[in-house]
């Protein structure tokens, strides 16, 4: 046999990919094992998926890096920022799987549902660790492909099909835009590597080059679509309304974490030479996003649509952290996303609990008079809504505080005043739901799904909201530690 010399040495630091390997291998194993599980015992598939995530989380904690470790010739990076975001992702996916069990128990072929969630998570893990546009794009496609299928999983439900189709077409369009942007940057720099593209942009110093600007605009548009930033938010309400509710919960949290991590990495590694340009674009989008998200949410009668617009509004606040462009801003993004995850998953758990006899309790009217029937759920719902509205001394307040302070530090006082205005508008429609719950007469008979797992989820998230509201310092410190060395 010919003596072949390879142009590259064996990749270093392969161990940093252990969490990804665990998820990939166990997800594929689960796909096979699921065939041998009878329909009555499908719940075990869900539990095994959760165990997979727990194992990956343990591996991530064990490997938690002190600094940035590059693997695969600089295609993959494992730093505290990536590790922290991955842990957030694990929590979001595990809780989404747990709140799916009861919702999906009547569906056929439910095993693949959990496997696809694992693969979506794998895609997001790769997005988080990517330091190369190729890996970023592939990770994003893996995530997107899984979510298209998950949104359309209930084939008998017309709304679900419609949502999946809309999401698929717009998602493919956004992938195209992202790729188009990447090609322009590749044409200018001759590399797909974040830092090499950044260095090339810095070296040319000619940021007004139309090719560079075109690349920047398309890149930001593609990324903005994934985190549903206006004006690329159009798919959000339809996809959220039509998707199975646990998937709505999953989609409103996990892809946002991955998307913002990518945006931060791109801002830090690729675009430092074009700070004024991308800041201008992001500021414009943030202003639009906050307005559209919070104003459109007022008009919604369906709570899933309302929460979709609320997501858009919150994304507008999170972007302030990127615009701040300092370590506090990036830490603020992590704080915001962590707290937002807890609130959103809690509120969706209650919405799923209100499912009764095939009818999903998802109109705002369905919540009227909840406090008289189930005071416990009403209290939890009230806490989540107040927290989402940013009422002080609940966790949501500290989330906003973290990004607003960072933006003020960076000198964006007017932008923060504008954000505060729309934060007040947001508080209006959240508190309106609390009014329905506590001060209106019941218009429908409540029938709650009795599920221990779901009730535990509601209790844990509600307690976490109060605890983080009273004592947010550990989370704030952890997020600050996670962005050390990023810039």
């Amino acid at each position: 046999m010919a003596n072949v010399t390879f142009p590259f040495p064996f990749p270093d630091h392969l161990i940093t990919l252990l969490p990804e390997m665990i998820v990939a291998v166990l997800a594929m194993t689960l796909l096979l094992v699921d065939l041998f599980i009878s329909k009555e015992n499908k719940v075990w598939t869900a539990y095994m998926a959760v165990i997979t995530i727990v194992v990956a989380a343990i591996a991530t904690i064990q490997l938690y890096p002190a600094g940035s470790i590059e693997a695969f010739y600089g295609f993959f990076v494992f730093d505290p920022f990536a590790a922290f975001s991955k842990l957030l992702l694990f929590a979001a996916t595990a809780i989404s799987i747990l709140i799916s069990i009861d919702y999906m128990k009547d569906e056929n072929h439910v095993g693949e549902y959990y496997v696809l969630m694992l693969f979506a998570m794998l895609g997001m893990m790769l997005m988080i660790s990517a330091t190369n546009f190729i890996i970023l794009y592939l990770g994003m496609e893996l995530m997107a492909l899984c979510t298209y299928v998950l949104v359309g999983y209930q084939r008998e439900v017309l709304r679900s099909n419609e949502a999946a189709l809309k999401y698929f077409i717009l998602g493919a369009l956004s992938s195209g835009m992202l790729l188009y942007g990447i090609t322009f940057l590749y044409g200018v720099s001759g590399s797909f590597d974040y830092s090499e593209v950044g260095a090339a942009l810095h070296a040319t110093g000619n940021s007004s080059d139309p090719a560079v600007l075109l690349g920047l605009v398309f890149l930001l548009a593609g990324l903005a679509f994934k985190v549903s930033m206006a004006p690329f938010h159009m798919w959000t309400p339809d996809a959220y309304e039509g998707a199975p509710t646990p998937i709505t919960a999953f989609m409103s949290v996990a892809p946002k974490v991955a998307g913002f991590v990518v945006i931060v990495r791109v801002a830090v590694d690729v675009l430092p030479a074009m700070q004024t340009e991308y800041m201008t674009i992001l500021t414009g989008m943030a202003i639009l996003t906050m307005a559209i998200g919070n104003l459109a949410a007022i008009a919604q009668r369906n709570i899933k649509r309302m929460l979709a617009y609320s997501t858009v509004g919150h994304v507008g606040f999170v972007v302030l952290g990127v615009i701040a462009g300092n370590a506090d801003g990036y830490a603020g993004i992590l704080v915001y996303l962590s707290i937002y995850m807890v609130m959103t998953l809690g509120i969706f758990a209650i919405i799923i609990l209100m499912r009764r006899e095939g009818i999903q309790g998802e109109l705002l009217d369905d919540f009227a008079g909840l406090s008289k029937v189930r005071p416990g759920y009403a209290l939890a719902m009230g806490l989540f809504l107040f927290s989402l509205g940013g009422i002080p001394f609940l966790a949501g307040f500290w989330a906003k505080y973290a990004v607003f302070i960072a933006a003020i530090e960076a000198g964006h006082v007017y932008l923060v005043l504008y954000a505060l205005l729309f934060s007040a508008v947001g508080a209006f429609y959240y508190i309106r739901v609390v009014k329905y719950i506590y001060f209106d007469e019941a218009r429908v008979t409540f029938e709650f799904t009795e599920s221990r797992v779901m009730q535990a989820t509601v209790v844990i998230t509600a307690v976490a909201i109060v605890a983080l509201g009273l004592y947010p310092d550990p989370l704030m410190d952890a997020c600050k530690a996670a962005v050390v060395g990023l810039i």
Partner: protein
Amino acid sequence: MLETAFFNLFAGLSIFAGLGVVLSRNTMHAVMFLIFCFFNAAGLFFLLDAEFLGIILILIYVGAVMVLFMFAIMMLEVNVSKMRDNFLQYLPLGGMIAVILMIEFVAASTTGVFTEGAKATAEHLAMDVNNTKEIGQVLYTKYLLGFEIAAIILLVALVGAIVLTIRGRKDAKYQNISKQVNVRREDRVRKVSM
């Protein structure tokens, strides 16, 4: 000399095949012409020493994409005469694209990129290189991570397509194979006394 002759052969045949795709009345013949066109394009790639691209073009486009095309055409039952009625409707858009393409071709060929000198350097740039081997060496070392992710994407696409299309209808008349295999004579044949 021989190379120029082969170039003229492949280029001429691919133009002929391209005309055939547009002008043939039968959709199936158009697909066949397209396949012929791909074979000639692959020949042109071989002449440029890009043997990997040539092989891939035949394997993927002819072997997979065009077969899919044929199945789609056979299943959709395209009505050609009906499509011809809409010819004028699509003419402005199609004509516009054709004009833009023409301008682009002319502009590109007059920029000076295709000077005799540039053509001479580009000629046989890859003569001493084994494309397939080189691409393989880079793909399975430097770009291994991306390659693996692409494999997982394909798996997800398979699983997703099956999940979304499988028909688990309860009123469907399934064949129960184990029951058929285990059937005994007594279950099927009844002896009646006349």
